[in-house]
């Protein structure tokens, strides 16, 4: 039994200022059309939750089902920070693998406020996400800045290397009609943008966006019965936790775990997320034709390249500089344009990553098309130990 990505749909990313449900429903309708099915065919609906849009966002599965029209389908809603979309995919895929349904619709969408993400409402001095702002003024970009500076110290990366990531992703994003930012940029423009969290500048850091993405997943037999050719399989969904002691300072924590009693694990968290996906799919980094990684900052894309095994630690800058991770290179990274071109619409983002993987594997990516792709990985990490990796194959 394998699970097929039968259809994908997206609402363009932007700052549209409309309710998240509109984006999700638009994406869902596109995905259904793409899959060649109608809403009433769907047996299972999973909504990835958004926490900044009131109660309808906390029960996204029911909100989307109601918006599309109650059909009596089974539903679920889930939240896992930036990995919410992947978790939603995992639930649907698992239910199909268990033989409990044949076809499922997975939807994520967000409508975001302007500026830095703030902690969610009210005085909550027992919540580390509130406390990190109160005691330290530690925004999300502050953590990205820490990782970037650490990378500079360990491997000699430079602000110009970081800017080169933005230039590469902006070029790819300029070819993607779903991206929010579609203008090519230069290294000079990145290096002249205002400093936000040293050493990261405004153009090194991903924005917060509105957007929506949806996919239709189905059992292989369902897809074959419908005569679908060129199947794309969702071959792995990894949602592993870190292994104690996690020695990387993660959002929104004040400290790492301690290695006083137990030595640090061989595989740090991000690498473990990818390793579990490779193992489940039975492929390795050498099999990939492309990868989508979570470039919350330009510097993080370099970290991810090493974490998913595209090169040894410390060599991502060199691989970037060789042009191999750009469109036209050996292993394009973020051919969609990445978060650099989209900005983050949290619950939609991991689903959008799968949309790009599927579009590429089906050969429908137009000017962004990677030649004859066979396997692709998407990786993602958010707050509080949630992260994800997906592998899609032909």
């Amino acid at each position, binding site marked *: 039994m394998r699970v097929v990505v039968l259809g994908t749909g997206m609402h363009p990313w932007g700052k549209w200022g409309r309710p998240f449900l509109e984006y999700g429903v638009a994406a869902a309708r596109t995905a259904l059309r793409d899959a060649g099915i109608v809403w009433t065919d769907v047996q299972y609906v999973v909504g990835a939750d958004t926490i900044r849009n009131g109660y309808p966002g906390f029960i996204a599965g029911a909100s989307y089902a109601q918006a599309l029209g109650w059909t009596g389908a089974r539903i679920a809603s889930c939240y896992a920070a930036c990995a919410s979309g992947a978790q939603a995919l995992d639930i649907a895929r698992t239910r199909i693998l268990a033989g409990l349904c044949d076809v499922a619709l997975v939807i994520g969408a967000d409508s975001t406020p302007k500026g830095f993400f703030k902690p969610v409402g009210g005085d909550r001095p027992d919540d580390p996400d509130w406390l990190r702002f109160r005691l330290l*003024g530690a*925004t999300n970009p502050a953590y990205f800045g820490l990782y970037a*500076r650490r990378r500079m110290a360990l491997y000699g990366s430079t602000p110009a290397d970081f800017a080169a990531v933005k230039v590469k992703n902006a070029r790819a994003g300029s070819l993607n009609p779903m991206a929010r930012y579609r203008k090519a940029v230069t290294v000079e423009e990145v290096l002249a943008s205002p400093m936000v969290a040293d*050493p990261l500048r405004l153009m090194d850091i991903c924005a917060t966006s509105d957007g929506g993405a949806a996919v239709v997943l189905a059992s292989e037999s369902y897809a074959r019965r419908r005569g679908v050719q060129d199947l794309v399989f969702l071959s792995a969904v990894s949602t592993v936790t870190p292994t104690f002691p996690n020695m990387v300072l993660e959002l929104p924590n*004040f*400290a790492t775990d*301690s290695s*006083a009693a*137990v030595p640090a694990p061989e595989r740090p968290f991000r690498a473990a997320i990818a390793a579990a996906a490779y193992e489940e799919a039975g492929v390795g980094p050498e099999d990939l034709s492309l990868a989508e990684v979570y470039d919350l900052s330009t510097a993080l894309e370099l970290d991810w390249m090493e974490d998913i095994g595209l090169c040894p630690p410390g060599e991502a800058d060199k691989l970037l500089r060789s042009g191999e991770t750009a469109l036209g290179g050996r292993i394009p990274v973020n051919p969609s344009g990445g978060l650099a071109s989209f900005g983050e619409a949290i619950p939609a983002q991991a689903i959008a990553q799968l949309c790009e993987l599927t579009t590429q594997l089906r050969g429908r990516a137009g000017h962004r098309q990677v030649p004859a792709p066979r396997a692709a990985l998407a990786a993602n990490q958010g707050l509080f130990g949630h992260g994800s990796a997906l592998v899609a194959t032909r």
Partner: protein
Amino acid sequence: MTHAIEGWFAVDADGVFLLGTRCSACGTVCFPPRHGFCPNPRCEGEEMEVTRLPRRGRVWSYTNACYPPPAPFVAAQPYEPVTLAAVELDGAGIVVLGQVAGLTVDQLEVGMELELTSGPLADGPLVWMWRRAS
């Protein structure tokens, strides 16, 4: 002076100390202090003793906030960038984040030695901070 958070740090004649916990079964150290269960997955310890953490360590990384962070942070007027450092405490195998007093990012380096101090938030209460080691 009021502490911005109770039970996370202590100020006395010997200086400023972060208050962590140590599992009496396996020795795992935690900050912020943690009660109830040990985070080591292979330890069933439930007795966490409050312990003073080492006052010195080396910079794991650092950054700053060039724009005023949003509430509940209270930004000083006029605003000066807040400097943050993540410091690996000597011998405790733990990295702790804090504001840095009296140093800008241009004066910091990864691996540099810092020590604990305390300083006021813009609206008054004290919080732990890092400063250049004496």
